[in-house]
C-alpha cells in the first residue's frame, strides 16, 4: 500500500512538473507549482517526515505561491514563445540526467536499515534525546538543541534575504537607460521628476553614466 502511494505520488509529481514546462500562461504555471509543492508534502508524509511535510505545505505551497502571484500582478502573466529551438539545453539535461542515473547505481537500496546514512549520529539522537532534551519529537530536539547553530544560521539567511528584498523594493522608480543613436541616454522615471527640479539631477545622471556605459556598449557591439 505504502509503495503504491509512493509510486502514485511520484508519477503525479512528474506529470505536474512536465505540464509546468508546457504551460505558457504563468498564472497557471504558478498554480501548478503550488500543486507540485502540495503533492511533495504528501510524499513527505509517506516517507515519515511529518515535520517537513507541514513546513512544505505551509511555506512551499502557501507563502511561495503568494509571493509568485504578487510578482505576477506586477510583471504580467504571459510568456513569449522561445525563438530558438532548445536542442543544446535538451542535450545538457539528458547528459546530466544520464550521469546522475549512473551515480544512483552505487546508492544503497531504498529503505534498508543498514544503510550508512543511519549509522553515524542518528542512533544517538534516537536513543538519548528523550533523556537529554526531554522532547518526544526527535526532529524538534535536533533542530533546536543539537543543531541549534544551524537554525541560527538559517535565521541569519532569512534576515539577509529580508534586508535584500526591502532594499530592492523600497528604492522606488529609477531612471531608465535606453540605447539610441549610438549612445546611452537616461530617461527619467516619470515626467513629473523631469519637470520639477529633478531635471538637473537627471541630466547629471546622464553625464555620469554615459561614458562607462558607452564603452560597455562599444565592446559588446
Amino acid at each position, binding site marked *: 500500500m505504502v509503495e503504491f502511494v509512493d509510486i502514485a505520488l511520484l508519477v503525479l509529481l512528474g506529470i505536474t512538473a512536465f505540464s509546468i514546462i508546457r504551460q505558457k500562461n504563468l498564472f497557471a504555471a504558478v498554480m501548478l507549482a503550488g500543486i507540485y509543492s502540495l503533492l511533495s508534502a504528501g510524499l513527505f508524509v509517506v516517507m515519515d517526515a511529518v515535520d517537513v511535510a507541514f513546513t512544505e505545505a505551509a511555506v512551499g505551497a502557501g507563502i511561495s505561491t503568494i509571493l509568485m502571484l504578487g510578482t505576477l500582478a506586477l510583471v504580467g502573466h504571459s510568456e513569449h514563445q522561445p525563438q530558438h529551438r532548445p536542442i543544446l539545453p535538451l542535450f545538457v*539535461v539528458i547528459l546530466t540526467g544520464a550521469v546522475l542515473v549512473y551515480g*544512483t547505481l552505487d546508492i544503497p537500496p531504498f529503505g534498508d536499515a543498514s544503510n550508512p546514512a543511519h549509522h553515524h549520529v542518528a542512533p544517538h539522537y534516537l536513543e538519548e534525546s528523550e533523556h537529554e532534551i526531554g522532547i518526544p519529537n526527535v526532529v524538534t530536539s535536533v533542530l533546536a538543541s543539537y543543531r541549534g547553530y544551524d537554525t541560527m544560521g538559517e535565521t541569519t539567511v532569512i534576515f539577509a534575504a529580508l534586508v535584500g528584498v526591502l532594499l530592492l523594493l523600497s528604492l522606488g522608480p529609477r531612471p531608465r537607460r535606453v540605447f539610441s543613436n549610438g549612445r546611452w541616454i537616461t530617461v527619467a522615471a516619470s515626467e513629473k521628476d523631469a519637470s520639477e527640479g529633478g531635471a538637473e539631477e537627471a541630466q547629471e545622471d546622464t553625464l555620469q553614466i554615459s561614458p562607462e556605459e558607452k564603452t560597455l556598449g562599444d565592446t559588446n557591439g
Partner: protein
Amino acid sequence: MTALGLFNYWAVIFLMMVGFYTLIARGNLVKKIIGLNIFQTSVFILYITMGKITGGTAPIFVEGGEDVIYSNPIPHVLILTAIVVGVATSAVGLSLVIRIKEAFGTIEEDEIQDESL
C-alpha cells in the same frame, strides 16, 4: 518497501532534470524561478528518501514502544532548514525580477539582451 529499489531516486532525477531544463531553456524570468523551485523540491525528496527506513515510523517517541523502528531524523532537520532558506532566496529572486521589469520593461531574457546591447 525494498521492492522499490532505485525507483525513487530515478523519479527524483527526472524531476530534477525537468527543473534544470526549465531553468536553462526558458527565457521568462518567473518561469526560471519556478524551475528553480522544482529543482529544489526534488533535492528535498532525495534527502527524505534517504532517511526512510522500511517499516519505520515518524521519529516521534511512541508511548511504551520499545521495539518501534524510527526513520532517520537528520535528513528531516536539514530539509526543514533548506525549505525556509529556499523560500527566502526565491523572494529575493522575485524582487529582482520586479526591478528588472521596472528597468527594462520586460522579463523575457532575449528582449532584455536586445535592449542592453
